[in-house]
């Protein structure tokens, strides 16, 4: 018995050694490590691109490393600590300033194809640019936006005005008036879904709710002096968040624990949805012609919409930056990857991709989303303190939505942000920027 076990163990060991040996030989090839996140469909799409790339470039192996979306930044830190940064990495645009400041990324202009650089939309360029040296550190096929989706039946029932372009977006009075009317309408359980179902610790909160603050006339942080106190806890921000708190209190907003499909689920219990461009694909599939796409409402004087998405950079420690750049160029030009992106109603970040995307073209259903990019889009603060900014803001929003005092929560968040900046000596040279 024991002898048998021993034999088996020995055989296993030998097999492992043989495999390791084979792997050792394969090491002679250049290996590009690619770290990314994404839903299962995207993960498969990236994997397929990698296979095609390996076929086209037999001397290069691609190794995909998947990290889940909500813990991506933590995983990234772990990779930094283990000195195992991948060659190519997907990163969320607002974290770019932090990564470049910390020295993780290298400029990608010399590494990717020139025609791709020329193909980038201005919003795509700005999300990949580090504000200090104005150099490009990341590139992506896509960008993003948030719009207001409406259920045509319900909107017609209350006689709502349907805005045709960004310029005639709903004002706050109109918006809140409609919410109230919808709340009394037969069949509507919740007037609006703001996708609280994504969780309370998700970038969605800062990404989607931040623009409402900016529309109201304040911001997450003062973008000249880089201090949050006096801005995030100002009267305008307190009022804006108190407004949202009132919607929640009135029972107008789909609660966190009711998932993210109430807009198009059986019976269509939510009348409006403040959702990302990616939501269009699933919602339109279920609702057909009953879906209306509208610009985000104006809370104050001007309308503001978010932008920025997951883009690709090359690490400063990469041993094969050329191969990494080659892979990146291959990915962004890959036809099947673009085809998949289209099925997900991906928001074009490259001009050539915009031309292939009828959804976003003049007269297309998401044309309003594309119009927002040039008229109302404001990027999240490009500052290395962003991880703390977003974490503190999420915490404050959760507190406020559940009945906490807005002034108190925002003051605490502002203090936390300023403390982090102070702890890092002002993140030089950001402290001299103004």
């Amino acid at each position: 018995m024991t002898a048998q076990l021993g034999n088996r163990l020995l055989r296993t060991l030998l097999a492992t050694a043989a495999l390791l040996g084979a792997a050792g030989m394969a090491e002679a090839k250049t290996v590009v490590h690619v770290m990314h996140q994404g839903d299962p469909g995207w993960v498969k799409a990236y994997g397929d691109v990698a296979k095609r790339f390996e076929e086209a470039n037999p001397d290069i192996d691609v190794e995909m490393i998947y990290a889940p979306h909500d813990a991506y930044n933590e995983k990234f830190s772990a990779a930094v600590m283990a000195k195992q940064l991948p060659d190519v990495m997907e990163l969320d645009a607002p974290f770019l300033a932090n990564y470049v400041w910390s020295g993780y990324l290298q400029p990608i202009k010399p590494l990717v194809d020139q025609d791709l650089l020329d193909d980038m939309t201005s919003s795509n360029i700005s999300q990949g640019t580090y504000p200090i040296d104005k150099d490009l550190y990341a590139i992506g096929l896509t960008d993003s936006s948030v719009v207001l989706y409406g259920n045509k039946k319900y909107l017609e029932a209350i006689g709502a005005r349907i805005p045709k372009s960004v310029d005639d977006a709903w004002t706050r009075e109109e918006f809140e008036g409609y919410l109230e009317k919808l709340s009394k309408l037969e069949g509507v359980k919740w007037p609006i879904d703001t996708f609280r179902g994504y969780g309370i610790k998700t970038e969605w909160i800062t990404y989607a709710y931040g623009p409402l603050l900016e529309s109201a006339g304040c911001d997450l942080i003062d973008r000249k002096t880089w201090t949050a106190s006096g801005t995030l806890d100002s009267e305008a921000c307190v009022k804006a968040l108190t407004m949202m708190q009132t919607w929640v209190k009135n029972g107008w907003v789909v609660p966190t624990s009711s998932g993210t499909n109430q807009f198009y689920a059986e019976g269509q219990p939510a009348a409006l949805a403040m959702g990302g461009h990616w939501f269009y694909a699933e919602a339109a599939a279920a609702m057909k012609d009953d879906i209306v796409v509208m610009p985000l409402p104006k809370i104050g004087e001007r309308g503001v919409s978010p932008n920025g998405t997951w883009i690709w950079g090359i690490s400063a420690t990469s041993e094969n930056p050329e191969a990494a750049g080659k892979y990146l160029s291959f990915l962004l030009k890959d036809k099947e990857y673009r085809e998949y992106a289209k099925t997900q109603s991906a928001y074009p970040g490259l001009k050539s991709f915009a031309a292939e995307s009828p959804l976003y073209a003049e007269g297309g259903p998401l044309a309003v989303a594309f119009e927002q990019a040039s008229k109302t889009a404001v990027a999240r603060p490009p500052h290395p303190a962003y991880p703390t900014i977003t974490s503190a803001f999420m915490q404050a929003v959760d507190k406020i939505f559940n009945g906490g005092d807005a002034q108190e929560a925002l003051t605490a968040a502002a203090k936390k942000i300023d403390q982090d900046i102070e702890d890092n000596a002002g993140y030089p040279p950001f402290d001299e920027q103004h």
Partner: protein
Amino acid sequence: MTLQQTSAPAIPRSGRRHDRQRFWQEVAMIAPAVLLLATFLITPFLLSFWTAMTNQPLVPRPTPVRFVGLLNFQRVFTDPLFWTSLWNVTRFTVWVLPVQCGLAFLTALLLHQKLPMRNLLRGMFFLPAITSMVVVCVIWGTLFQYPSGPLNQIVGFLSAGAIQPIDWLGDPNWAMFSIVLLSAWQAYGFQMIIYLAGLQGIPEELYDAARIDGASALRRFWHVTMPGLRPTHVFVLVITTIQAFKLYTQVAILTQGGPKESTETVVHYMVRAGFEEQKLGYASAVSVILFVIVLLIALLQRKLLRRFDV
């Protein structure tokens, strides 16, 4: 079978050389364990005291690491969220202790009886404990769904619709209670096994003697079983309290500390500071404070339980 030895066995006298040889043998035997403990437990532990007094970031940054003295501790103690999280774990502990240990004790008593298929039953009751907490959380997350999750449907059915659906994880008044429910259910198996072992350690002769003396089942439980379980009770209470204070997984998966900070726990607060905000020094300060608190509670519990001679 003799229960008591009447005389101590003769201790063999041995020379100094023999003693020394034995000493080195013992050292050689405990050395691996001590080495591992020192490398992976004691050194990091001491290091965290040092880190707590610096502004060490999680990952290297262009700004220098400085010694900041007790600044981190001062900030932790002046952060209302820290006190909230401490209050929350206290609440959690006070609720989960009776539920979890009670459940464990009762099932252990049940499974100690001579039931048919006893071993199979024991295995079944132990199943939740060997299921990964992450899996349990995902399943319970579905049960807890609002407004029409299975749990709400059961409550609605049993109350004939009188009780409105409860937002188990989304209502600040309910969230911690919901976490208590699923935590107790997942973890009681461990305490159950300890109680079972404790019950099996009580000699059958004592029960026989009690029976001969004419003691009823209740009196046998109260005067034989309970005293026989004294050390088990102490162990279970201490270990459950320490586990409860380290509440993290359930919160990280289901509520992320919300809603309205009602499920923020000390460990979750620490992880948030250390990994999300990348303030390793600050997070170390929290861990040191948590260590002191848990140590004090364990000592206090032992002392109190000794005094009451339980």
